[in-house]
C-alpha cells in the first residue's frame, strides 16, 4: 500500500494510555475474512467504538466532539502486541490515523506500520508522560516535524529519533515495491549469476 508522504503533520491527537493494546482490539476477527484491504476503517477499535446495535458509543474518545479530525494517537506501552494481522495497520490508515506516539511497539506491528507508511514514534517514558499530560490538559493540536525530528505542542518541544530509512520512506511516501524495482537491473543481474552458479534451482 502506498500512502502520501509528509514531513510535517499538524493534527488533533487523542491520548489512549492503556498498556498492551493488542491487534485483536485494534481490528477484531470479524474483519479478517476479506480478500482485499477495503472496509477496514469501520473495523478500527470496532468493539470499543460501536455499541451492540452498531451505533457510535459516545463514551469512546474518538467519538467525542473535537476528535473528528484526529490523525495522531498517543498510546501506552507495548502497543500492537498479539496477532500479526496487517489489517490493524490498514484500518488505522483508512480511518485517517497517520502517526502513533508511544514508548514501545510490538515488533510485527512495527514492521507492518513501516511497510504501510504509518509513522511510529517511540519516546522515553519521561517525555511521553509530559506529552500525555500536556495534551490531556489542553486538547490542542500537535505538530510532528520529521525533518527536525521533534514533536511540538504549544511551548513544549520534544525531540525523537527514528531509523533513517523509515524516516525517508515516510517523508517521501515511498512506494516500497517501486523503490526496490528501481533496482530491477541489479536484481536481474544477481539472479542470472546466482542461478548460473546453482543450476539445480533454475
Amino acid at each position, binding site marked *: *500500500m*502506498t500512502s502520501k508522504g509528509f514531513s510535517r503533520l499538524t493534527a488533533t491527537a487523542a491520548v489512549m494510555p492503556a498498556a498492551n493494546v493488542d491487534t485483536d482490539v485494534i481490528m477484531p476477527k470479524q474483519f479478517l*475474512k*476479506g*480478500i*482485499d*484491504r477495503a472496509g477496514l476503517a469501520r473495523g478500527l477499535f470496532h468493539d470499543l467504538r460501536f455499541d451492540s446495535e452498531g451505533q457510535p458509543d459516545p463514551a469512546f474518545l474518538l467519538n467525542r466532539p473535537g476528535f473528528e479530525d484526529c490523525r495522531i494517537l498517543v498510546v501506552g506501552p507495548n502497543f500492537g502486541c498479539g496477532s*500479526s494481522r*496487517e489489517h490493524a495497520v*490498514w484500518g488505522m490508515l483508512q480511518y485517517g490515523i497517520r502517526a502513533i506516539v508511544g514508548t514501545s511497539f510490538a*515488533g*510485527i506491528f512495527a*514492521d*507492518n506500520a513501516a*511497510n*504501510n507508511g504509518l509513522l511510529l514514534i517511540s519516546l522515553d517514558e519521561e517525555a511521553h508522560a509530559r506529552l500525555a499530560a500536556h495534551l490531556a490538559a489542553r486538547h490542542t493540536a500537535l505538530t510532528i516535524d520529521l525533518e527536525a525530528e521533534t514533536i511540538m505542542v504549544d511551548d513544549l518541544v520534544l525531540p525523537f529519533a527514528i531509523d533513517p*530509512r523509515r524516516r525517508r520512506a515516510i517523508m517521501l511516501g515511498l*512506494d*516500497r*515495491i517501486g523503490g*526496490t*524495482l528501481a*533496482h*530491477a537491473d*541489479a*536484481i536481474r543481474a*544477481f*539472479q542470472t549469476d*546466482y542461478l548460473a*552458479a*546453482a*543450476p*539445480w*534451482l533454475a
Partner: protein
Amino acid sequence: MPSPRTLYDKIIDRHRVMPLNDIEGPGEQLLLYVDRTVLNEYTSPQAFSGLREAGRTVWRPEGALGVVDHVNSTAPDRTAIAPDADAQRQIDYFARNGRDFGIEMYDVLHPRQGVEHVVLPELGWVVPGLVIAAGDSHTTTYGAFGSVGFGIGTSDIEHLLATQTLPYTRLKSMRVTIDGTVAPGVTAKDMIMAVIRAIGAAGAHGHALELAGDAVRALGIEGRMTICNMAVECGARVALIEPDEAVIDYLSGRPKAPKGELLEQARRVWADLRSDDGARFDREVHIDAADIAPMVTWGTSPDQALPIDGAIPDPAALPAAERQDAERAIAYMGLTPGMALEAVTIDRAFIGSCTNARLTDLRAAAEILKGRKVAPGVRAMISPGSSTVRREAEAEGLDAIFTAAGFEWRQSGCSLCLAMNDDVLAPGERCASSTNRNFEGRQGSGGRTHLMSPAMVAAAAVSGHLADVRRMPLP
C-alpha cells in the same frame, strides 16, 4: 584466510543483492534474494489485490507455490465446497490468483494438498542453502534442510512476489546444543518443548537459532522439521540445523528434488553449509539430552510446560515476574496448583498440524493405539499433515489401527491447530494436542490446549487423562 562464519551468515551472504546501510554484522540492512515462497488462501489475498491495483506482475512465478490449507474442511468425505461463504471466497480468489499470475496451486481436492509446511518438503522443493520467506510464522520449518525460512506479513508477500527480494535486517545468532542421547519415549517435540521452557517464549527474540549436538543430529528429517517448526515459539525468526547425508537421503526420488549431475553439483556446494569452527555466536545454550522427559504444557504460553510426571505449579512459588501470568493461565485452564499433570482429564485428542502430522508422527501414535481403545467420552481425531501422508499411512494400514481405536481418520488441513475451519473446541473443552500453540482461544473460544508429542496424545486419548507414554507398554 576469511574469518569463520555461522551457517546463517553464509546463507544470508549468498543471497545479498546489495547492502542498504553500512553496518556489518547484526543490524546490517540489505536487499535479500528469496528463492522460494509458499502461499496460502488466508494471508495472501491482499498481496494479490495490491499487485492488481498497481498493475504489477509476479517476478518469478516458478518461485512460488500455493496450497489451500487454513480454512478448508477436513471431513473424510469433503468436497470442493468450503465450510462457509467467506472461506469459499478466499479459496476462489486464491485459485483465480494462481491462474492470473501463473503460479502453481494445489486446491482442496488436489492429490498433494496438505498443510503448506508438510507439502513443500515432501515435494523435494526444499533443499539446503535456500532463503524461503512465506506468510506464515512456521516457515522456520525449513531449517531442517539447512535453509533460512522465516514468516512475513502480507505487505512483504506482495513485495516478494513483485521483486523476488525483501529488504532485510541481519539477525544476531544463537546456538542451542543438545548433547547426548534422549531416553526411550522422548521425541523431537519433547526436545523443542524443553528448549522453549528453558529459554522462555521470547528467549531467542532477534536471533537466528542454530540447533546442534548429537541428539539433534540423531533425529530423522521429520523430527528436525518438528524442532525448527516450533523454534518460532521461543521467538526465533529463523531456525537452522546443519544439513547432512540424511537430508540427501530424504530428497532422493522426490518429484521436485535435483537429480543426477545437478544433484552432484549441488552436493559440492552444500558441503560448505555448516558453521565454521570458531564461528562466533552472540549466545550459546547447552542442554543435556538425558535430562529431557516427555513434556506437556499446563498454561497458555508454550513455555508454560513441564515433564509429564510433574504437577501444576503454585504461582506463589514462582518468580514474581511469572506469577501474574501463571495465575491467569491456571484460571483459564481450569486447573488447581499442586494437581498432578497425569490427573488432568481430557475431552478431546488431536493429532495434526505442520508440527507433528507427518508419517513418522502417525507411526508413533499408532504404536500406542494398536490394540487399545480411546477412553469413553473422549473425541479423538487425526488430520494427516498432507493428502500424501494420508495415502502413505493407509498403505501401511495405520488408518485401520486409528479407526479401530476410535480415532476419526480425517482429511488434511490446519484444522484444529488454529480452528479457522469448522474443527473447533467448544468453550471449556480440554484437548491433548500435537500442535504448536496453546494460546487462549487458539483452538476455539474458551478451549483449553495441552501441547505434547503425537505418542503422548495417543496415550492421553486411551487413558482419558494426560498420561506418561513411558508407562504404556507396547503390545
